[in-house]
């Protein structure tokens, strides 16, 4: 299943919120969520700093835009069909492309809509991000496929680790208590399938995490919701 565990919350007690512009005291190499000025490292986003493995990063805790990374599994929705490609919404700063050669289907030129129409959803992988920031996705990897049932919930990509939980504990609890199948896109698009009411409960739990990711006592609240 890939990246189904998250141990980001380990050093909880020592985490301090940083804001854009804050100076970060570090000898580590600059990572993401930071910028350099006069040889010093500053935070560029609101989030928590993380000085690990020789890199100084700031992990954003807000924001709804997804930054595509090669290898990420995502849920994408078709927004446009063209003769040899589909334009896909993956929640990034602009739409992604699914090329017919990455679909795994034999698509006659101009016939793309027959395979994937506007509004259809897929479980795919980001397979290319170029220097100019353009990105492409693929249906040919692992368990990537078109999705035919269930529903899709959109959350902020920064809250994905919280939905997964420590070693996948949160998502496992949601899946088990609601008897649903769930695919979590790193882009914050989440597919849920099962019985109608069960999907609704799982959706509620996930949306609660998205809305209250930074509150205390969230885990207990979710447990209560799932018990009902």
């Amino acid at each position: 299943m890939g990246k189904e565990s998250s141990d980001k919350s380990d050093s909880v007690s020592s985490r301090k919120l940083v804001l854009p512009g804050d100076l970060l005291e570090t000898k580590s190499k600059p990572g993401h969520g930071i910028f350099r000025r006069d040889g010093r490292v500053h935070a560029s986003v609101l989030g928590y700093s993380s000085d690990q493995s020789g890199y100084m990063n700031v992990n954003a805790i807000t924001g709804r835009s997804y930054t595509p990374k090669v290898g990420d599994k995502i849920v994408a929705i078709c927004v446009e069909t063209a003769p040899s490609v589909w334009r896909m919404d993956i929640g990034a700063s602009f739409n992604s492309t699914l090329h017919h050669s990455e679909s795994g289907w034999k698509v006659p030129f101009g016939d793309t809509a027959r395979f994937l129409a506007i509004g259809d959803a897929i479980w795919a992988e980001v397979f290319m991000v170029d220097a100019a920031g353009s990105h492409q996705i693929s249906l040919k990897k692992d368990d990537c496929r078109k999705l035919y049932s269930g529903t899709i919930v959109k959350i902020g990509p920064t809250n994905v680790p919280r939905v997964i939980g420590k070693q996948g504990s949160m998502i496992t609890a949601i899946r088990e208590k609601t008897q649903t199948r769930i695919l979590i896109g790193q882009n914050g698009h989440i597919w849920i399938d099962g019985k109608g009411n069960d999907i609704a409960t799982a959706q509620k739990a996930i949306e609660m995490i998205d809305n209250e990711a930074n509150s205390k006592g969230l885990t207990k609240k979710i447990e209560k919701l799932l018990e009902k």
Partner: protein
Amino acid sequence: MSNDSVSNLMRGHMESLAKEGKRADGRGINEFRKVTIETGMLNTAEGSAMVHLGNTKVLCGIKMLIGTPYGDSPGSGTMMTSTELAPLADQSFDPGPPREQSIELSRVVDRGIRESRMIDFEGLCIEHGEKVWTVFIDLHILDNGGNLFDCCTLAAAAALSNAKIPNVQHGITDKDVDLPIACWPISCTFGKLGDSIILDPTSDEEGVMSARFTVAHDENGNLRAAQKGMNGAFTDTEIREAVKTARASDNVLREALKGIQG
């Protein structure tokens, strides 16, 4: 959530939930979301109200200025409604000239107040044939969580209920009096999801429903305004049922309005 693309899967899921009388957010098909009303927060307006209906948030300000009456009603005040779809309310609200949806919203809310004779226009006459009060109802949409029609109508009613005629400031008399209100129309908006009719759609539901129907009743249970929108169709039975449901369900909003009238 405020992203542009809507998945076909969501339509199927919502339609099958609705068949069982349920919604994605846990409500029943004839249930309103939580409503809160706050009034009188703006010092520069003669009346003001902020209404939250679920995630939808609308701020209404009432301004009253002295104007001239229409030729055919020399003893009546006048009114004007405007709705601003502030770009911060929805990713798809581009700044620029008003779109058709904005104009439809504005006109439906306006008619709901004007044609229902909610404001006692004769009570707004200052000098017959010469000077009357013009009531400006300005609705500012701050957050579009769906069902702007009902939220705007309620915000307008709440703001009007707290509005005072600025006699003192304009040197008309030495006392500001309440704006005269004759009746209280409350609107209920329904959406058609597959074969089910749902009340008070969220923006996700609006993205997948095929038709919309709004109906307003006054406190005596009489109809005051109605509008069917979007390009789908309702059956005759569905319309009649919706009207009955509106009368049964609008008390929630009416109670909220009464609550702030003190």
